[in-house]
């Protein structure tokens, strides 16, 4: 099972929120508009996750193939 982690480059993120729009299963927004990644990216949403990485206006997202860190 290919599991990926969505990582945010925090200094680059300016809270445009496209990632949360495209990938609500994995990303929600905090009260200031910044992404909270609350799930790992699994097979079904991988395509949308890639779209989110492409769509980010400041290229602040990366998809890392890895096992998730413990919460």
């Amino acid at each position, binding site marked *: 099972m290919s599991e990926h982690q969505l990582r945010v*480059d925090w200094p680059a*993120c300016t809270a445009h929120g496209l990632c949360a729009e495209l990938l609500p299963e994995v990303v929600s927004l*905090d009260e200031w*508009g910044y992404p909270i990644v609350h799930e790992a990216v699994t097979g079904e949403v991988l395509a949308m996750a890639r779209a989110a990485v492409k769509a980010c206006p400041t290229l602040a997202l990366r998809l890392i193939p890895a096992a998730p860190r413990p919460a």
Partner: protein
Amino acid sequence: MTSATTALPTAVQNEEGLPPVVSQGPALLAGIGHGPGLHAHRDRIGPAPRLGAQELVELAREVDLRGRGGAGFPSAIKLASAARRRAVVVVNASEGEPASHKDVALMTCAPHVVLDGAAAVAHALGTREVHVVVPSELPSLRLIVVRAVRERAIAGERLRVRLHDAAPRFVAGQAQAVLQLLAGRENLPVTARAPEAVSGHRGRPTLLSNAETFAHLGHLARVGAAGYAVHGTADEPGTTLLTLRGDGWDPEVREVAFGTPLTEVLAQDELTRPLLLGGYHGTWLRPGQLPGLTVSRKGIAAAGASIGAGVMLPLAQGWCPLVRTAALVDYLAGQSAGRCGPCRNGLPAMAEALQDLVHRGGPVARVEELCGLVRGRGACAHPDGTARLVASMLTRFPEEVDSHSLGTCRSGQPGMFG
């Protein structure tokens, strides 16, 4: 042991405007009575140690040497990662933590102990490039380091040592922030693609460690594992530098062997008050927990705290730990680099929520929520450390928290409500 003490130059001051007193120690601070000069240093301990990378890594592993910058990362692993071509050595003496003075003490009173370590590491990694980061607000310290480097060059040491001046900020000492400084950019954290030991300054393997860590490495390289273990315990050999009362009226830097009971480190009355351990990103301990503790990474971790950068701050007499924490979070919020949204927004919100809690009976839930929101969502550990401080306050002092929700303070600090 009766110890000589040295007061640091008056330019070095803590928040109360007082220079910390540095006591002679068993290992790193053994020679402070003879001054910071190279000749006295060499007379006392002989030539600088020169080892291969493998040997140095093994020694560090044998004594489980940990970094002294606060994170406690195993030095052996860092050394092994950086032991590749074209490595760079960076000595971090920027000491951004206001309550810590040990690195400044080392660089001022025993610069060659640190520089011997840096030289040993440079030799082991097969490089001549050494960078030393000093606090920009202490030109007297810079002068001492410049002088020390010059002495070594005259004595024949062939290293390319460059000095850098760290910005007077809390986050200036963070590893990526230091690398930015070395690259000529603003001394603030950025997202790291790889650990700096793998790819750091100019993409080269970079051994970036705290000044005290280099001092330990130099000492270890010289006396070997057995010599290093003369002090300390079997489980945790060696010594560590502590800054006591760094924010108070009689700040002190003391070298202490691992395993020393806290009762021998702190005064009797200090053991009856809450203790903030580790620094401003540290954790609180209740007075009841103190007498049973020794200066031990593992023992302190078992008590739910962390030795951090060796900072010990007994709460001032008559003060409330909640009020103190709220003031610290105010400071820490102001020290955000402002580069990451969750930190830039979350820490001031946390400061406000804490002020609410402490002075107006505001909800604890909001404070907890914010701690959860800022953890792990930044380029550096500044928000995490702040959240850790606040979480420890909530864990250790639940009665005080309840009391403040009802509008009274158990420490009896007057006039803080409404």
